[in-house]
């Protein structure tokens, strides 16, 4: 496997879905470059509708891309896809969408603790109210306010009854 390319894909991509999209976008970009017009190398032109992805593709070192040839493109990307698929992500349930900077902050911290290949999946679930829930390798932990309310339902109801009495 081309380690440089793999690290490139994972470089500032902390979400598994994002990593998969990057691989697909890069693959289509290179295939387009090979098969659309071999004489006119359109490396600088945008290959996707996503400006972020375009920006990322344009920032890639051409030396890295030049290693991918028509003979090895399919095998290279097959291995990359398999590697990404094999990574078990940490699923984060959040009540609202986080800005990219905060996602990057969380991702960096997790990678510092658990390794460079660590990826997440983010699911938005407003019913959590606040806090978050985590799921990793089949174990689910709920730190949300919703779960707290559920766990302490009887105490909360008792408190309300007291309040209503007074």
């Amino acid at each position, binding site marked *: 496997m081309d380690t440089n390319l793999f690290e490139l894909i994972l470089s500032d991509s902390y979400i598994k879905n994002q990593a998969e999209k990057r691989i697909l976008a890069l693959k289509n970009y290179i295939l387009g470059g090979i098969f659309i017009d071999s004489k006119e190398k359109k490396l600088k032109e945008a290959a996707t509708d996503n400006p972020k992805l375009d920006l990322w593709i344009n920032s890639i070192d051409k030396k890295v891309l030049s290693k991918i040839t028509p003979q090895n493109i399919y095998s290279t990307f097959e291995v990359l896809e398999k590697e990404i698929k094999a990574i078990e992500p940490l699923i984060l349930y959040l009540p609202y969408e986080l800005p990219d900077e905060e996602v990057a902050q969380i991702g960096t911290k997790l990678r510092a603790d658990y390794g460079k290949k660590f990826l997440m999946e983010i699911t938005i679930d407003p019913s959590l109210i606040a806090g978050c829930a985590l*799921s990793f*390798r*089949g*174990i*689910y*932990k*709920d*730190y949300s306010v919703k*779960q707290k309310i559920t766990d302490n339902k009887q105490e909360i109801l008792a408190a309300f009854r007291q309040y209503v009495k007074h």
Partner: protein
Amino acid sequence: MLNTKPQEIGFVKQTREFIASVDGLPSARINDLVENEQGVRGLVSALSKNSVEIWLLDEGNVQPGQSFKSTNTRLTVPLGNFLLGRAVNPLGVAIDGRPPFAKTEQTQIAELDGPAPGINARRFIDRQLETGITIVDSLIPIGKGQRELVLGDARSGKQDFLIDIIINQREKDVICIFAAIGKPLAEVRNIIDTLKFNKALEYTVIVATASSDPAPLIFITPQTAFTIAEYFQKQGKDVLIILDDLANHAKIYREIALLGSRSPGKESYPGDIFYQHSHLLERAGNFKPEAGGGSITALPAIEFNLNDFTTFIPTNVMSMTDGHLLFKSEYYRQGQRPAIDLSLSVSRVGQQTKSNLANLMATRVKQVLARSAQLESVSRFAFELPFATQLILKQKDMFTELKNQAPLTLISTQVQLILMALPFTNMMQDKDKLYIRRYKDLIVKAFTEDVELSAFATSILNLATDDELINQLNINPVMKKLDQIMAGKPITKKV
């Protein structure tokens, strides 16, 4: 650090109808219960290297990517005396339109798929289950704790027969459980109404699934029925459980197994179909006080094509039961009720539950029937038969009339014995089957309701042999009362 209890979670990878393959749930066990966000419950049915197979017990739109969380419980059903008189689904939810069950401290919970008690917990079957139906009680008796298969083709009266048995258990202190496995809703409603009308619902529990319910829910119906039966049996009660029908149950299991990519075996049934029925029926029996006392008598029913008697499921279940009653639609169409073919029906355990008198009487009747079968073919070629031959053929005709019993009628054991003995008495020498057809109901009524005749009927239970009984019927002055009643005298009813 926030203190929160971890749960196990799995994500749906693939769904096929009511089966979902889930990735995750690391410590799931077979028969664990899981639930998704929409409240759809699933039963863990298989564990493979990379996934967990779940049967969906509720209707719901389950998509790949959805999550199922472990509930840390196994599939259970709530138990209590509140179940009597109610119809429930296999998860213990009331389906009869009446108020749901209130959970109290008295509510017990039991797992559905418990193991069958071992040999040490069982005792000899020595008590008869009185069905109130002459042909069964006298010639093919069923013992309490026995498993007797009821099989036959469509429209042969099997269900009416089973409902009659339930109705005839009134005031006999027997709890009845009827498992309707994948029946049409209208049929289930009809069963509930019939039992209610005949005041049989108060000691009956109905566990029902409609044909429109998810297949896994239909599959667990007999397990729920047996769990409920075991609850009452452990209280020392005698329980009668009817499974209608196991052929449908086998077909549902076949459907689930084929969808779950299990390798098909004979007739495309999965390889463990025998085990599914045998470990269920093994939960029936007669139990020692240490195991709760009481008994569970199982009457599994199977509908099949009589032209192909040796299909897989009927032969399987025949080998795991203690006898079978074969119903024929041909007899049903001829007006015979119940439409049991006596020559092809057997009860391997019932004889030991009857008294010596009853056994001797049954043997005598069977001898006449067997002899008449031989003589009938000869009789076609003779112009004038000897008196003895004519008598045997006449007795056989009388028995054919006597064993006919209208639905929803109950004949007590002593009256059944008298009916079986009547064709051998002097009184019937010059009578024929038309006399029996005309006066049978009156004879039964006389021996049940008349003061003198009913006392006489009760007294015959103390007799030792069939000869003594026939002798008593010939010489006892009380029999003159019967002649008078036949002649039109009103019955002197018990006060």
